[in-house]
C-alpha cells in the first residue's frame, strides 16, 4: 500500500494532484471498505463490536489468513496456486493420523506440526519444480496437485474421518491466551513472518519484480526459477500449517476438510487490493481482504440475512471492493 513520494502534492498542477489523491485513495480503499462494513454491521446489530464477537471473528479469520498469505506470495509472482485444498487435506490427515487419534495408536504430540508443514512445503516444491522445469502454467500444475493431494488424503484414510484426540493439538484451538485462542496467535505470528519475508528479504523483493515484469527481471539477472520454486514451497508450507490448524479447530482429519476454502482465499487476496496479474499488493492487503470476507460472513448471520440472499450479497461485495481499488487508468487493456 505505498504511493511513490515525490514533490508535495500542492506543488503539482491540478490534474496531476487529483490523480495522486485518487491513487492514494485507491491504495487505502480496501481498509476504508472494511471500516465502513464494520460500522454498518454494528448499526444493524450492536453486538458486532463486542470483545466476545471480535474474538470469534478473529478465530474465524485465523485459518483463512494463513492460507491467504501463502496465496498472496504466489499471486504476487503473477501465478496462481489452486492446490490449497489438496495440501490442506494432506496436512490435516497427517496431523490426525500421527497425533493421538481414534484410528491407530500413534501419538507424536506436537511433533506433527513440523511434519505437516514439511509435507506442505514438499508438495509446494513439487508445484514449483513442475511449473518451472516443464514450463507448465501454474494453473494446470496446481490444479493437478490439488486433486492428487485430495486423492492422497483419501487413500491414507480410506475415505473415513479420524478424530484427533491429542489434547496438545486440540488445545491449539481450545486454549486461550489473553482471551484469544492460540490459533489466532499462530496466525498473527505467520503474518509477521510473511511481512518480514516480503519487506526485508531478497525473496520478497524478487517476487514483486517477477510479478511486475518477468522479462525485465530476467534481464536484471534475478534468479527467476529459484525464486518461483521458493515461493511455491513457502505457500505449500503455509497450507500445511493451515491443515494442522484446521484439524485442531474441527477435531478431525479428513480429505474434505479443505472443501470450499480456495475461493474465499483467492477472493480475500483480490479484494484486499493485490492484483491477479502480479507485482502489486502484499501481505497487509491480504490481511484487510481476509478481514473483509470474514466480517461480511459474520455480519450477514448477525443481521439475520436470509441464507437465500447471502451468496448474492457476497458476490456483489467482491465486485464493489475490487472496482473501488483497481487502477482503471493504468490498466488500459482489461481481460
Amino acid at each position: 500500500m505505498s504511493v511513490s513520494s515525490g514533490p508535495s502534492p500542492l506543488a503539482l498542477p491540478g490534474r496531476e494532484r487529483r490523480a495522486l489523491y485518487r491513487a492514494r485513495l485507491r491504495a487505502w480503499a480496501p481498509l476504508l471498505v472494511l471500516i465502513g462494513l464494520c460500522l454498518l454491521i454494528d448499526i444493524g446489530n450492536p453486538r458486532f463490536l463486542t470483545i466476545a464477537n471480535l474474538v470469534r471473528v478473529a478465530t474465524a479469520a485465523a485459518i483463512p489468513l494463513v492460507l491467504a498469505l501463502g496465496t498472496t506470495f504466489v499471486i504476487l509472482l503473477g501465478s496462481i496456486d489452486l492446490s490449497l485444498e489438496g495440501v490442506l487435506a494432506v496436512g490435516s490427515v497427517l496431523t490426525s493420523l500421527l497425533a493421538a487419534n481414534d484410528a491407530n495408536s500413534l501419538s507424536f504430540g506436537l511433533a506433527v506440526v513440523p511434519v505437516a508443514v514439511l509435507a506442505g512445503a514438499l508438495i509446494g516444491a513439487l508445484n514449483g519444480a513442475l511449473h518451472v522445469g516443464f514450463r507448465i502454467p501454474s494453473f494446470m500444475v496446481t490444479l493437478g496437485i490439488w486433486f492428487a493431494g485430495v486423492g492422497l488424503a483419501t487413500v491414507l484414510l480410506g475415505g473415513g474421518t479420524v478424530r484427533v484426540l491429542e489434547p496438545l493439538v486440540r488445545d491449539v484451538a481450545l486454549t486461550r491466551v489473553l482471551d484469544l485462542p492460540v490459533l489466532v496467535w499462530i496466525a498473527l505470528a505467520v503474518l509477521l513472518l510473511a511481512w518480514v519475508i516480503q519487506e526485508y528479504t531478497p525473496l520478497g523483493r524478487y517476487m514483486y519484480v517477477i510479478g511486475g515484469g518477468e522479462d525485465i527481471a530476467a534481464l536484471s539477472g534475478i534468479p527467476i526459477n529459484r525464486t518461483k520454486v521458493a515461493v511455491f514451497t513457502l505457500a505449500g508450507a503455509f497450507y500445511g500449517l493451515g491443515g494442522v490448524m484446521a484439524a485442531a479447530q474441527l477435531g478431525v482429519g479428513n480429505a474434505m476438510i479443505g472443501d470450499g476454502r480456495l475461493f474465499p482465499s483467492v477472493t480475500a487476496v483480490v479484494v484486499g487490493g493485490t492484483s491477479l496479474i502480479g507485482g502489486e499488493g502484499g501481505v497487509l492487503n491480504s490481511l484487510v481482504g481476509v478481514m473483509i470476507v470474514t466480517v461480511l460472513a459474520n455480519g450477514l448471520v448477525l443481521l439475520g440475512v436470509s441464507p437465500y440472499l447471502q451468496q448474492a450479497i457476497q458476490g456483489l461485495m467482491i465486485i464493489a471492493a475490487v472496482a473501488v481499488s483497481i487502477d482503471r487508468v493504468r490498466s488500459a487493456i482489461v481481460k
Partner: protein
Amino acid sequence: MARYNPAMTALRRRSFMIGSGGLALAATLGRNTGLAADKPVLVNSIRSLTNPYHATWNKGGAAFAKSVGCEYVTLVTEGNSEKGIADIRAILARTNGNMVLNVDPNDSPDARPIVEACVKAGAHVVTQWNKPADLHPWDFNPYYVAHISFDGVRYGEETANHLIQAIGGKGGIVALGGILSNTPAIERKAGLEKALAAHPDVKLLDFQVAEWLNTKAHDIVAAWITRFGSDIKGVWAANDDMGTGALEALRAEGLAGKVPVTGIDGIKLAVDAVKAGEFAATVSWDPFWQGAMGLSIPYHARIGAFDPTKEPKLHREFYGTGILVTKENADAFAKEHIESDPNLDFNDLWGRISGPIRQS
C-alpha cells in the same frame, strides 16, 4: 531438410488419423465380443470416496460383489453432474450393457439421462435419493428396477423431536440446513418445521445454510453465539458433518454437552458424540446396506430371480428404514454397524421397505 509442403503434411496426418482410428475401433470391437457371456459388472456411482457415508456405501457394494463373484467398479462424480453421466455412459459402452448400476445421482435431473442411457444399453439400474418426481421405474420396464429413498420429512421431524425433548420442551433452537436445492435438505427442513409446529413453546431463532460442510457450520454457529448468546438451547443440523462442525464451535465456547446437537447420517463421529452426551440423536441410513442392496436388487432382476414388471409399485419406489441412534441404543448400534461390517442377508431384497414414496 526437405521443403515443408503443407499438402503432403496434411495427407500424412490424415492417413495417420484414419489408421489409428481404425485400430482403436478394432480393439473395442474385439474386446466386446468376449464379454457377452460373462457375469454382469456391478457398478456403484456415488459422490466421492472422501466422505465416510459414501466410503461405507462403497464397502457394502464391494462385499456384495465378492459374495456373487462379479467384477465391481466404483464411479465418483466429485459433485459434477456431467462427469457422473459421462462416466456411466462410458462404462455402459465398455460392458456393452452387461452390467447393473446402483446410482446416487449428483442432482435430481441427472436421474433421467442416466436411466435412459441404461435402458438403451439394456443394463439394469437402481437409483437412490435423487430423481425427478415424474420419473418412475414402472415406465421403463424392465430395466429401471427400483428407486430407493429415505423419508427426509419423517427423520428430520424425529431428530427435531428428540432435540426438543433434550432441551426440556421449550426454549430457542437454531437450525443448519443443507444445500437449498437438494431434495434431502428440503425434506428434512420440512420435518423440522412440522416438529416446531407441534411444540409452540420452542422457538426457531434462525435458520442458515451450511451446505452440508462442517467448516461452514462451525463459523455460522460462532456468529450465532454472538447474536443469540445463551438463548440458544439446542442446534438442529440436517446432517452429521454440519452437526460435528457446530459441536466444535460450541466446544470452543465451553458449551459442548450443555447445548445438545442433532444430525443425520449416523457417521462414527456422530455416534461417538451421542455416546458422550454431546449429540442428542442421529439417524443412520446404513450406507453399507444402500451400497450392497442397491446392487443386489438389480442383479437379482437381471439373473431372473424375480420379474420387476410383476412386482407391486411398493417394491419399485420405496422408502428404506433409517435407524434412529440415541443414547439408549448408541452402544449397541456402534458395535453392530461401526466396529464391524453389518451382517446382511443379500437375498432379503424387500425387508427394509418402510413405505411408498410420497408422490408430490
